[in-house]
């Protein structure tokens, strides 16, 4: 079973995406807390795609799909923008004085904290493919 959603790369679609994930979570039987974590990770991922992969809002596509693998809830997010290199994003240091708290890199940091697996893959044809896994004992 796989469900998918394709939307244009616009910030106004983020609420639509959150609703798609909420529906997915309900179908997969995720608890509220787990669902919130997945929604947040997906929201950050899609915001990054719009902002960085596509360099701002556009009519380019973002494709989301989800399925379950045993106790794993798997979300895949695909875009056809600039190749993304996660190693180029510095890990934000948050244990520093207020004036030094960084403004970038927080989204990726949150994704990695909230999900059990975050994998980026780039393919000439398929574009950027982000796979995120949340273990969810039901």
């Amino acid at each position, binding site marked *: 079973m796989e469900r998918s959603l394709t939307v244009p790369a616009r*910030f*106004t679609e*983020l*609420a639509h995406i*959150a609703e798609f994930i909420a529906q997915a979570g309900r179908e997969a039987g995720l608890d*509220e*807390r787990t669902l*919130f974590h997945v*929604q*947040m990770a997906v*929201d*950050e991922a899609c*915001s990054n795609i*719009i*902002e960085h992969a596509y360099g701002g809002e556009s009519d380019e596509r973002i494709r989301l799909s989800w399925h379950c693998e045993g106790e794993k809830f798997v979300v895949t997010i695909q875009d056809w923008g600039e190749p993304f290199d996660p190693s180029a994003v510095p890990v934000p240091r*948050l*244990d520093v004085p*207020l*004036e030094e*708290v960084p*403004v970038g890199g*927080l*989204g990726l*940091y*949150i994704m990695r*904290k*909230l999900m059990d697996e975050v994998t980026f893959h780039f393919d000439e044809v398929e574009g950027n493919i982000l796979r995120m896994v949340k273990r969810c004992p039901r």
Partner: protein
Amino acid sequence: MDISTTSYKRCELVKVAGRIDSASAPRFEEALQEVLERKRYNIVLDLSGLEYISSAGLRAMVSTQKVCKEHGGQLVLAAVPKAIQEVLDLTGLDALFTAYPDTVSAVGSF
């Protein structure tokens, strides 16, 4: 996202409800900026109705806190929902904000 601002003698109360994501974060940022432009640096952020905040919203909170502190004031939080508190804890940003259980105690702290 719904946002409203109330002026008190010693502080400003900004109530934000709904979703703060990349679509709505600019409006959230503008509301906070408007308060700062009036040179009001003691701010209570009432989060009781907040359902979701993304990193874009968190960044607006951090940059507002920086300006408040530079001017001898601070941004404090009131009625932080459990899920939002978890996000603050996770990112370590909880250390940057004093949180009060309700707006009465937060406003009274100034």
